[in-house]
């Protein structure tokens, strides 16, 4: 257990340093957007990984309803928390990027809007988790975890419809990338994946331990 932990953390540190080096020094400066474009590498990686995190919430919820095993519920809880953290960072970095690129902190650009709605959905998921206990909490949370993910594609479609409602500055983020940029992006993506994996593992173990302690306490009191 301890050895694998050290291994993962070592792996993560190396990847982190490597990706930072690539982002700041290896990747060329983008001609039109300039230096700010370098946020792109972490911003987009974080957004991919937060999708993964929410998909894991869905899987955990589904598996929990099928098997009733605590593990799946705790996995969903851990993944939702880290998904909200990452997705929040996507919003903040997107906003920091928007300021020098488009001159405003926030635009109702379809991507940003959809990300924000997603963030609200999973914050509600966490609020629900906080407002019930035990098996009931797990069941309610699983239902919301499933409904939320089913809703994600609809959120993205609807955000595109928003064009008619508020002014949108069109963005083309994924234009032809230079090889060095693509490499940097891929390394950042892998780094974020490993970061997600390590954080979820820690959070999952904490959640399982907390559940076990709560059970022991209940037994001791009884």
């Amino acid at each position, binding site marked *: 257990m301890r050895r694998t932990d050290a291994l993962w953390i070592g792996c993560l540190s190396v990847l982190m340093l490597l990706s930072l080096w690539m982002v700041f020094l290896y990747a060329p400066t983008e001609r039109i957007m300039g230096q700010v474009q370098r946020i792109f590498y972490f911003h987009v990686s974080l957004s991919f990984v937060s999708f993964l995190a929410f998909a894991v919430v869905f899987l955990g919820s589904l598996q929990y309803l099928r098997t009733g095993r605590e593990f799946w519920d705790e996995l969903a809880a851990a993944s939702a928390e880290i998904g909200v953290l990452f997705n929040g960072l996507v919003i903040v970095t997107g906003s920091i990027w928007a300021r020098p690129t488009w001159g405003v902190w926030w635009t109702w650009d379809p991507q940003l809007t959809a990300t924000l709605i997603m963030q*609200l959905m999973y914050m509600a998921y966490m609020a629900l988790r906080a407002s019930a206990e035990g098996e009931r909490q797990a069941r309610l949370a*699983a239902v919301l975890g499933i409904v*939320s993910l089913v*809703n994600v594609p609809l959120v993205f479609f*609807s955000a595109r419809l928003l064009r008619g409602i508020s002014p949108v500055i069109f963005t083309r983020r994924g234009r032809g990338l230079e090889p060095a940029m693509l490499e940097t992006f891929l390394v950042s993506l892998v780094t974020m994946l490993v970061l997600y994996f390590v954080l979820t593992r820690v959070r999952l173990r904490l959640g399982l331990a907390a559940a076990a302690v709560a059970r022991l306490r209940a037994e001791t009191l009884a």
Partner: protein
Amino acid sequence: MSRFWELFVKDARLELRTREILSAMCLMSLVVLVLVSFTIGLNPTVAREIAPGLLWVLLAFSSSVGIGRSFQMERERGAGNGVLESPVDRMTILAAKAASNLLWILIVQAFMLPLFAVLLNVDLTRALLPLVVVIVLGSVGLAIVGTLFAAMASVARLREALLPIALFPIVMPLLIACVGATRTILGGGALDLASAELRLLGAFDIILGAASLLLFETVVEEGL
């Protein structure tokens, strides 16, 4: 099917006697409407600009008031578990509750639309039929998903607070599509100009409706 009608008629009859939910929903619409006109200041230009959005804000808020009550009444009278113990398919219970919620929403809209048209100086007569189509499609999704969430909220600790927190983000795609379609219609466009919005609405109703029906049983497993 007959059980569905039985439950639906029981709810409808009870509500027609007390009219608690309907009056609360109408009042909520009115209060929000007045609040918006005072805080934002609805001169005719602004009113025309925000009318489609305001219509759906009113509908969403008033619906959440009504939907939130749908299981509370049973809870207070202790009848919720009675319904659940009776040998009725859980899906039927949700469907019946959602149908009565849909009915409340539509009745409230029937009262509010003329008032809305007068207060905001919007001409609804030309666009009435397509508007009704959009309102019905939107209300169906809102009622089904809302009823599932009302059941969830009524067993969780946050109760009243939880319903809007959880429901509004989930129905955001539905609201965006409805507002878009309403804007097209009020602007004088035909219904097929809003086909993208209508497709999204249909998809939302079908996908989330099916998910709600399937998941309801899980929510009420231990009673209300």
